């Protein structure tokens, strides 16, 4: 790699969102801080998640406006990066994952994205309001304060922005209803109770760009006539809570929050309320009950929060991503926003790409992008020798879209037509090693244990469904179970009180719809085609291949493997717990998993 420029780097950034910290970015940051202690001309910044989570820890070096992003950085490599940029020593090209001017491994991945919500994530220091302001932060609020509330709402409506929490209700319309609702006291609530397994969109925004949410809320408050806001954030996001609270303090000090904001006469305060970890509190009425200190269970709607919300007052509830869109819309205009997307789905959507996909991480794409483009083009598809089987969208409320429907465009209506939902942005890619019955069981287990228990359809119905799925996974299913599952699914969807129950059967229904054969294999043939369901699989050592190294026997936690050194080993099927550790350690791939 040629030395990019003779100029000294101006800024070095370290991704210090949860994903980075979990990968060891803190040590990298500390190392760089000590190395740069003498370089007053180089600014060291902590930034949020840029989305390439699979490359964390990430370090970005900016030289003359050109950005070089390095992945899998350790403190030693950090030193090497500095050595390269400051002194031209060494070669670190293999660590370069993105180059704003040239070409690098992930340039294509980032190029396919459109970053509205994540516009600042990974680029600014989330703990410094100046960084946000420097990138047009609070310009939208300043603008909003000069607009009539109706004009703000009209602009948001015109943009076509729909709630990014999952249901996809028109944001502008929701604001309009709340503004129209009678009452002096109104509230703006931000739902930051992101709870879907595998979803981390909101967390990344809160950790990487908290001010964008605050600004969105303030604009909303101004438009609906609220003077108090609450961010309901799950306590499992301590970094997000800390950064939010820091951001609120800074914004208040800078006059963007508090009394008489920017001398406009407009007052708006925001408090952070930490949730105690109940998934159902992501449901808006349960969330409101929880804020009020009551048991977090949903209540029937109507009345909708827009009429009777927090403390019985008209309340706007939007999620993090929705609010983060708002400042951008005001600054760039509704038309600019609406230019992205298709049909009734405008703008972009952030997805947490996970599962068997190669490049898991956070991506933001324009609505309407074909699913295939997202999963294969951006996500890089699945591992070699494997094929995509399905994409699970929308978390436990969502469904599985089979590989043959990968050309479905990602927009609300098209996704719903497949039986899945857009959801808040969880996207789990499944390949041929994923058992679809097990996937359904996994998601149903999640919703079942997160059911608040208020209505029988959800409390008992999902439990009975889960019991049937567990039976099928154990090979004890009956053919009639499938009809029973379908019957119950329909009833639970139709009769449950809140979204949790109404959507809980989706993973079951979509897998039954697209992968019925896999269910039947479990029931009729007592076979798990993906070789996942433990009671239906057996581990076998091929005596011809086994070299008798004893590694597997030593690794086995239940001593199910025996055999003499240098002779073929065997597995006692009754003792084996199907943990799969033997397969992992076997140096000659002599151990195979079989399902009859």
């Amino acid at each position, binding site marked *: 790699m040629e030395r990019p420029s003779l100029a000294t780097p101006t800024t070095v950034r370290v991704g210090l969102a949860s994903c980075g910290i979990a990968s060891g970015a803190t040590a990298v940051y500390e190392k760089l801080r000590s190395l740069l202690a003498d370089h007053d001309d180089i600014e060291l910044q902590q930034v949020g998640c840029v989305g390439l989570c699979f490359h964390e820890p990430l370090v970005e070096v900016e030289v003359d406006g050109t950005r070089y992003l390095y992945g899998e950085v350790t403190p030693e490599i950090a030193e090497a990066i500095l050595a390269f940029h400051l002194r031209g020593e060494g070669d670190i090209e293999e660590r370069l994952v993105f180059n704003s001017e040239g070409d690098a491994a992930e340039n294509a991945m980032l190029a396919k994205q459109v970053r509205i919500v994540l516009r600042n994530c990974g680029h600014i220091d989330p703990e410094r309001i100046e960084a946000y302001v420097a990138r047009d932060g609070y310009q939208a609020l300043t603008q909003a304060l000069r607009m009539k509330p109706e004009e703000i709402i009209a602009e948001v409506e015109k943009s076509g922005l729909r709630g990014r929490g999952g249901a996809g209700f028109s944001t502008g319309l929701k604001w309009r209803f709340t503004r129209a609702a009678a009452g002096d006291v109104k509230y703006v609530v931000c739902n930051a109770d992101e709870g879907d397994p595998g979803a981390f969109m909101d967390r990344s925004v809160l950790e990487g760009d908290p001010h964008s949410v605050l600004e969105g809320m303030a604009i909303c408050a101004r438009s609906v006539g609220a003077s108090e806001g609450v961010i309901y954030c799950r306590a499992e996001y301590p970094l997000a809570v800390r950064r939010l609270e820091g951001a609120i303090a800074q914004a208040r000090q800078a006059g963007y929050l508090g009394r008489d904001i920017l001398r406009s006469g407009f007052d708006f305060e925001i408090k952070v309320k930490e949730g105690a970890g109940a998934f159902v509190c992501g449901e808006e009425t349960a969330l409101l009950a929880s804020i009020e200190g009551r048991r977090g269970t949903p209540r029937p709607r109507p009345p909708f929060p827009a009429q009777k919300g927090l403390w019985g007052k008209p309340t706007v509830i939007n999620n993090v991503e929705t609010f983060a869109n708002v400042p951008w819309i005001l600054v760039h205009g509704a038309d600019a926003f609406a230019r992205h997307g298709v049909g009734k789905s405008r703008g972009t959507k952030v997805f947490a790409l996970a599962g068997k996909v190669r490049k898991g991480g956070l991506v933001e794409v324009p609505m309407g992008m074909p699913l295939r483009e997202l999963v294969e083009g951006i996500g890089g598809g699945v591992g070699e020798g494997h094929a995509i089987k399905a994409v699970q969208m929308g978390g436990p409320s969502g469904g599985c879209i089979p590989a043959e429907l990968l050309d479905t465009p990602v927009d609300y209506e098209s996704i719903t037509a497949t039986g899945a939902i857009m959801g808040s942005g969880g996207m789990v890619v499944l390949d041929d090693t994923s058992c679809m019955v097990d996937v359904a069981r996994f998601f149903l287990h999640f919703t079942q244990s997160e059911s608040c228990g208020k*209505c029988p359809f959800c409390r008992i119905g999902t*439990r009975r469904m889960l019991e049937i799925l567990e039976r099928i996974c154990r090979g004890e299913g009956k053919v009639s179970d499938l009809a029973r599952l379908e019957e119950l699914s329909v009833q639970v969807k139709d*009769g*449950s009180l809140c979204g949790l129950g109404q959507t809980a059967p989706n993973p079951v229904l979509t897998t039954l719809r697209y992968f019925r054969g896999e269910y039947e294999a479990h029931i009729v043939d007592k076979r798990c085609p993906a070789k996942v369901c433990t009671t239906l699989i057996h581990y076998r050592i091929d005596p011809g291949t086994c070299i008798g190294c004893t590694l597997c026997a030593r690794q086995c936690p239940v001593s199910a493997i025996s055999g003499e050194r240098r002779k073929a080993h065997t597995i006692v099927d009754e003792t084996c717990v199907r943990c799969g550790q033997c397969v992992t350690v076997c140096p000659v791939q002599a151990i195979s998993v079989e399902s009859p």
Partner: protein
Amino acid sequence: MNRTVRVLLDGQEAYGRPGQTILSLCADSGIEVPTLCHDPHLSVHGGCSLCLVEVKGARTLVRACVTEIAPGMEIRTDTDRVRLARQTDLELLLSDHVGDCRPPCTLACPARGDVQGYVNLAAQGRYADALAALHENVTLPASIGRVCPAPCEEACRRSFVDQEPVSIREIKRFVGDWCLAQGERGPIPVIAENGRSVAVVGGGPGGLSAAYYLRRLGYAITLYEKEDHLGGMMRYGIPDYRLPPAVLQAEIDWLLAHGIAVKTGTALGRDVTLDQLREVHDAVLLALGCWRSSPLRAPGEDLPGVLPGIGFLYDVNTGRRPEIGRRVAVIGGGNTAMDACRCAKRLGADEVTVVYRRSRAEMPAQPIEVEEAMEEGIQFVFLAAPKAIEGAGKVEHLECERMELGAPDASGRRQPVPTGETFVLEVDTVIAAVGQAADLSALPEQICDGRWLRVDEHYATPLPGVFACGDLRTGPDIAIGAIGDGHWAALSIHRYLTTGTPRRPYECDVVQRDLGPEDFADRTKQPQEHPRVLPAPQRLKHPFQELNLGLDSEQVLRDAARCMECGCPDLHECKLRRYAVEYEAAPERYAGSHVSRLEEANPFYARNMDKCILCGRCVRTCDEIAGFHAIDFVRRGFEGTIGAEYLRPIENSECTGCGMCVQLCPVGALVEVRLPRRVHSARLRSVATPCGECPVGCDLLLEVEPLSGRIVRASTDLDLARSVSFGNACARGRLSPMELYEDRLVQPMLRSRGRAREAEWSEFLDKVSLCIREASGGKGLAILAAADLADEDYGALRDLEVALPQASVSLCGATPVAPLLHVLKERWGNAGATATLGELREADLVLILDGRLERDQPVLASWIRLAMRHSGTRVIAIGGDPGRLAKGGTLQLAVTPGRHADSLSDLREALLGKGKASPALGQAAVLLNKATKVVTLAGPEFALNERAAESVVSLLETLGQKKIIPLYSGANTRGALASGFSSSPVDALAAVRIGSVDTLLAIGVDPLDHGATEDDLRGVRRFVLFHHRKTKSLSLAHAVAPLPRWPERTGTFTNLTGTHLRWQPVVAPPGAAKPLPWIVSGLVRRTREPAARGT
């Protein structure tokens, strides 16, 4: 508001009010939408999901309880989608609702006899009531009690304790026999004719039952019977030594007495055709039975001497004596075979051998029948099947083949397999009792399908209006099976004739299957009672005399009391079950796991969270009506339950046991503690009467179980306009009416020479009038009276005072309140409360002076707590015990004994800003000055003397808030004081002690509870006790008279705030108890005219 919102409700135009919910509009329109969690007196919950309805345009079904109507809304409450959702919802709830609906005995009985009901009535010696309970499902109980194999007993869980069940069959027989002997077979009701008629063909148990139950519904019934007598197989198939025909006939006669026309000697096909019957009647029920013996399918079976089993029994039972010879073989192992072999023996055969192709264990006959047959000398050859019957012109020998047992067949019994080995029995007669079938020859082809009758599960045949039941439908079965079949067929016919569609009643029961001996380890063992049975020699000496003599009354009382009452106490009140039946929910459809939850009991009620459906009514009731919020949801999801905070036991919670939650619980999760030997009945009678336990006088609804005549629950009417207690009640009010049955005095008693004996009223009155006349002329008479008697009682006591110059009445149990009432009268012109209970509920500050509300007037505590929690009402408690009111910001001020008046003077100073107030007093003064609606409750310490009373009145005058309710106990203290009686028992007791009186009358009180000692009572010459219960001093009394308690009487009283209330008699007092005015007038009359009453 006007009905301006137009909607389409089930296709009909309906107009509702703006803001009205769909549920409410449906109620207005007469459409029942089921709900378990909704109650109009509680906030909306929306959990149970049963009120789901379809609204056009809505994505999912909507909850009618919360969804407001909107103009143009199209609502459907009756679609398949709605019904299916409700059914599924109920099935899911039932799958997690663990317990028993009906007890296992009832479910094992094919007729669903109310075993728990009649057994427990029998346990109380109420045999006539037990018979009435039996007749609800079991006709011919004395006969069934003799012949039934009693599947109920097989299911009885008493076997888990004693290895033996309750003797249900013998109890049933005893009840039937006792009632026959006493002539107490129950009144024949006047039947309202409905103008339709039904023909019942066949007068066996099935036909008879169907006729009876149809007749009760008002149908004109004609019973067609081919034989000369009714009774069918019970008469012609069962020998007299098991069922005497007289017993059967007496029971049949009682059924016929309901107005059932009978045509005996009329056979279908011979004397009358089905078409003719169909023409004359609105429906025809065929109950022809199974009268054809199945063939042996062995060569030689046509030889003379081979008899069909049922034909043989028919001959025996009609008095013919079939020729059978000396040696008889009976083929078969069922009850017919047993009856046949024992009859053959009784007809004189020397050698009777039963040949059965399996072993004894597989025999379908009742074990007792086999055992008794063996006792009577009958031989059994097991594992043998007839191969051929041989003989020249008549039976001479029977060749049999040895069998062995193979694999189980469809019936679960092991199949006999031929071995090839044969043997020969020398016999004169072979009786083939190997099965029976129906004779279908008289029936048209449309309803016969080859060998089988075509009949569906609702008893209907393909011919409209033609039904079939009993053995004809089921094949040969036990008699009780036919009785049940006849009953359900009758109900299906009723449905057909009223709605056009035959339908048998849908049954839905949750059953607890996982119980075993370990679940009953705490029960005391009590062995089963066995009937006396004649020994075998005596049986054969009197061959057709009944051999089982049954249980005696003592045995029945003991054995019936062994019943463990497995069924749900809320069987008939349970809304879940009611809806489950209506929507034909199957509890097993979604069977699955259950998280075992808490079961606990406190003195007031039992909580069985295994039956809880999490509707949250109790939580809301406790919060919104009772005011305590003692319970809430705990945990979540499938593991969710309801309990006190931190799941601590309910008695350590805020719960006062007021029972409002029990009243509103829609299932059997919360039930009142009840006395044992409870009886279930679907028809509770409810009577409104004010509570007499404290001076609040809450409006109660006492529910009486008609068969037992007992009060089984106390509830309230939350919709009662102008209710004294606004629908609330307390633990005492709910519990005491159910305790009426413990330790009651039932008869006057007199003691002479140290021995107490029961007496008639006339003797009692004579003796007592004599002694009070003596006392009145002598040293004097003291009368201690309770403060919870009726005005009429006090009037009578005043009459007594007038009649007896030396007598004086003192009140017990009335806390001294007279001085306060006096001061109030003097200062404010009103001797009583100046506030209403309504004003107390609306107060923004309640000043409680020496109150012990939870003990003395619990409902007041409930209202104040409610106001504290929901309206921010403040409470200042000076002295007394605030109990649970101590929570929630109550300001408590302790008072040094004797300084009660001073404490109020200090507070008054503080109010005026004078003096040096303590911080607490200062705070109280601030609160009082700020409050706008203060109500004061003043208890004994502030009422017992004029100084204290003056301090109260002065304080309130200074405050300018003259709303006060004096507190006292004793429901009718006001009435008693108005009669001018002394409010302290001290004087009367002092007089007793110094010997200035020698006669003491205690009325409704036990002097030992009010300061008297046993020596005091021994010291008086005469001590007469009038009471409803057996109290402590009973053994010291010279004469005792039973009084009714308030739910058993009429009478007026005045409550805490001066409202006049009237008790209504809810149940009859026990035994000879008489109201006090009756007793007193008898005494007064006798004291006035001693000469006339002389010896």
